[in-house]
């Protein structure tokens, strides 16, 4: 006890070499502060991306209705209080771009990566703290650019988040001029930011693991972040080239993607999806890592098949490079090629299967505590399975011919990205909140948010499978223009209502974040009785994380309920009996 007190003081000391407000909060090089910066920016972006979604749902539920409150939005989003076809296209384009590039990636990689990598491997900071700071600010600039595109004449990009050429390559085709250019520029800039980030993570994990922290003693969340960083490093440059070529087509009169002049429209799709598919795993792997840690910790049991879990993630990383064609089955790509892509896509389901079953195995004969992080992690498993299984339908070429570009796809997207990534994010934030802010998030409010979100989420996105089976195309602004979709209007309305509830529920989460910052109960050093190193620092870790020497690691991260201990957990740095005896 006294020792911890001492540590506290010491920790407090570490913060005390005077840094001004600017150095501490704006241009901080402390990985923990950078993690928080990413979190706040991403939440802000989430509000905007979510707002777009809400407006889309208003339009789809009650097509071409006028809503007087739309007045508050700029002309680029509404015209005389109604959403126009073009603004609708901008909305889902920006919705997806923001949610994917400025919400899920920043939180999973930016926040969790920065916060956890040094703390969990026992390092005092990233290998290149300055580079880390730049990585945040470059990403922030990208965010400003993408938001600014709402206000330029012609409005924001409206060619979908996939921006298929030639639609995206010639301003006249969409009527969007600067919006699309800014979209490209923003993502190029963001690419640089995450390049800096990923280099930093890889180097840190390879070089700065503390004594005894071998690769196979790393928590799975670190494994997932390591693999994600490698995917980022290799995938984003491809997007960057594609975007650069698109910009040349738009600005310099080249014809890379324009058939007039020898260009090849499908080339854009190949480049985009060669990046795009690894990208989707970039968005799920860290969430899988978080889930694994939650499930092990809260069923007080070692993760089932630790190595299998790590190898499965490595397998996903490799396979994700050879499946991109499954987005192009109906694109006019050689059908024989489609067949081989169907095969690889089916195979990539296997590692995910391994992970799913191992999560179940971890629960088996566990001692399961239903904390808020655990609830969110469990619903990650349940929802990811649904999203993954719907992927199997689309992986099958003949079936995809019918459901391609329908709401079946939209349902899949949201089951994996909201049901998967976002629930993983909720779990992670509630679990590591005490590490970030020194207080616990309110369990009551947390559970309330979880249940409303969980139910509203399923009411919103499950019916989309049925819309898809009815042939309801995606990216259409008014389904009532089609006779064969009229029977589905009721479902659309139901979805919209649930979506509004879902959106509102997120404010509960926001409230919990803010409320607990001041009124949450004070956190202890190891509030969840976890084994991993981040819980061996003071409650408020200073610059450099550990006041004294760096911890030494003696065992793997998941030694819960080990027969060798009386406690049901055994911290990685707790010296084995004989050694501690020697120490006395």
């Amino acid at each position, binding site marked *: 006890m006294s020792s911890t007190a001492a540590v506290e003081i010491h920790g407090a000391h570490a913060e005390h070499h005077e840094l001004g407000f600017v150095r501490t909060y704006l241009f901080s090089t402390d990985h923990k502060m950078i993690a928080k910066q990413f979190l706040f920016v991403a939440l802000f972006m989430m509000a905007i991306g979510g707002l777009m979604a809400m407006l889309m749902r208003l339009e789809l539920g009650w097509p071409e209705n006028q809503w007087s409150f739309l007045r508050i939005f700029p002309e680029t989003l509404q015209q005389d209080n109604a959403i126009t076809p073009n603004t609708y296209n901008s909305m889902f384009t920006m919705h997806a771009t923001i949610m994917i590039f400025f919400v899920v990636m920043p939180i999973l990689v930016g926040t969790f990566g920065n916060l956890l990598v040094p703390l969990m491997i026992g390092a005092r900071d990233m290998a290149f703290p300055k580079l880390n700071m730049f990585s945040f600010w470059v990403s922030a600039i990208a965010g400003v650019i993408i938001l600014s595109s709402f206000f330029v004449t012609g409005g924001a990009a409206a060619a979908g988040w996939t921006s*298929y050429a030639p639609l995206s390559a010639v301003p006249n085709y969409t009527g969007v001029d600067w919006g699309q250019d800014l979209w490209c520029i923003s993502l190029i800039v963001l690419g640089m930011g995450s390049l800096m980030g990923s280099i930093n993570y890889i180097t840190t994990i390879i070089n700065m693991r503390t004594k005894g922290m071998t690769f196979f003693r790393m928590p799975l969340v670190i494994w997932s972040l390591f693999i994600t960083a490698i995917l980022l490093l290799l995938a984003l440059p491809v997007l960057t080239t594609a975007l650069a070529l698109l910009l040349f087509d738009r600005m310099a009169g080249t014809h890379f993607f324009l058939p007039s002049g020898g260009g090849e429209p499908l080339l854009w799709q190949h480049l985009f999806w060669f990046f795009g598919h690894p990208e989707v795993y970039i968005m799920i792997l860290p969430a899988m890592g978080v889930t694994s840690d939650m499930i092990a910790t809260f*069923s007080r049991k070692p993760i089932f098949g630790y190595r299998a879990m790590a190898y499965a993630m490595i397998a996903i990383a490799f396979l994700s490079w050879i499946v991109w064609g499954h987005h192009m089955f109906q694109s006019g790509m050689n*059908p024989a090629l489609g067949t081989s892509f169907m095969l690889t896509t089916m*195979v990539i389901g296997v590692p995910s299967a391994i992970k799913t079953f191992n999560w179940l195995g971890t629960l088996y004969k566990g001692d399961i505590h239903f904390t808020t992080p655990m609830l969110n992690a469990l619903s990650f498993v349940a929802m990811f399975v649904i999203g993954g299984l719907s992927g199997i339908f689309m992986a099958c070429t003949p079936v995809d011919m019918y459901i391609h570009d329908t709401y079946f796809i939209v349902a899949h997207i949201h089951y994996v990205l909201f049901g998967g990534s976002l629930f993983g994010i909720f779990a992670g934030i509630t679990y590591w909140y005490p590490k970030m802010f020194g207080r616990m998030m309110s369990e009551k409010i947390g559970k309330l948010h979880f249940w409303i979100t969980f139910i509203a989420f399923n009411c919103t996105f499950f019916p989309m499978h049925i819309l898809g089976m009815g042939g309801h195309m995606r990216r259409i602004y008014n389904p009532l223009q089609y006779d064969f979709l009229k029977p589905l209007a009721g479902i659309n309305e139901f979805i919209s209502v649930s979506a509004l509830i879902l959106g509102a529920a997120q404010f509960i989460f926001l409230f919990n974040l803010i409320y607990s910052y001041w009124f949450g109960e004070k956190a202890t050093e190891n509030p969840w009785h976890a084994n991993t190193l981040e819980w061996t620092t003071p409650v408020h870790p200073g610059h450099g994380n550990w006041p004294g020497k760096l911890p030494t690691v003696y065992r793997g991260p998941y030694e819960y309920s080990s027969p060798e201990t009386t406690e049901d957990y055994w911290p990685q740095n707790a010296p084995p009996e004989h050694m501690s005896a020697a120490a006395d």
Partner: protein
Amino acid sequence: MFLEKMYFPHDISTFGPSIDAIFLLIFWITVVTWVLVTITLVVFLVKYRTRPGRKAEYIEGNSRLEITWTTATTVILVALALLSRSTWADIKEHGPPGDFFYKVTAKQFNWEITYPGPDGKIDTKDDVTVENEFHVPVNKVIRIELESKDVIHSFFVPNMRLKQDAVPGRTIAVWFQATEPGTYEIPCAELCGFGHSGMLGHLTVQSEDDYNKWLKDTYTNQ
């Protein structure tokens, strides 16, 4: 039929049934998987919820189980792929020789249907071109040259489960055989600009005589 209860549009194509069959197969495989996974999950959650004085059992894994479920899923998934191969090949790779030939040109935001004139050939000066009105005889193999003038569109006939992108600079071969007379919708399924929503043609399947009559009328009216 079950799928039509699930809002599947009534199928009028020759290959539709095999597509629906595969859909159903995957549907049941995934439903069973999902039920098994979810039941196990819920049972474990209830059975092993924390109770005072009980400690979790220290289990690190089980290689035999790992191997079992890895091979099981691999077998199921690969089997699915192999099984779908032929259907796909019939629809998109080869297919029966055509009885009637047309050219469909997509453009923002209409389908341009080109009918061969009296000489029965396309791309000759006696062609008839109509917008969004696609008439075909029933029970005949229809072959289409699919093209686009500007951006990528997608030729989608829900009632035939048929979908094929129209890519500028390419001519893509599409075939189908309608089995029931009637009028069906041809929406565009690929985002193609602000007019994407509402880009809509109509497919009229009619007896060969009606078809010929209609074609003659439109021809003379030009």
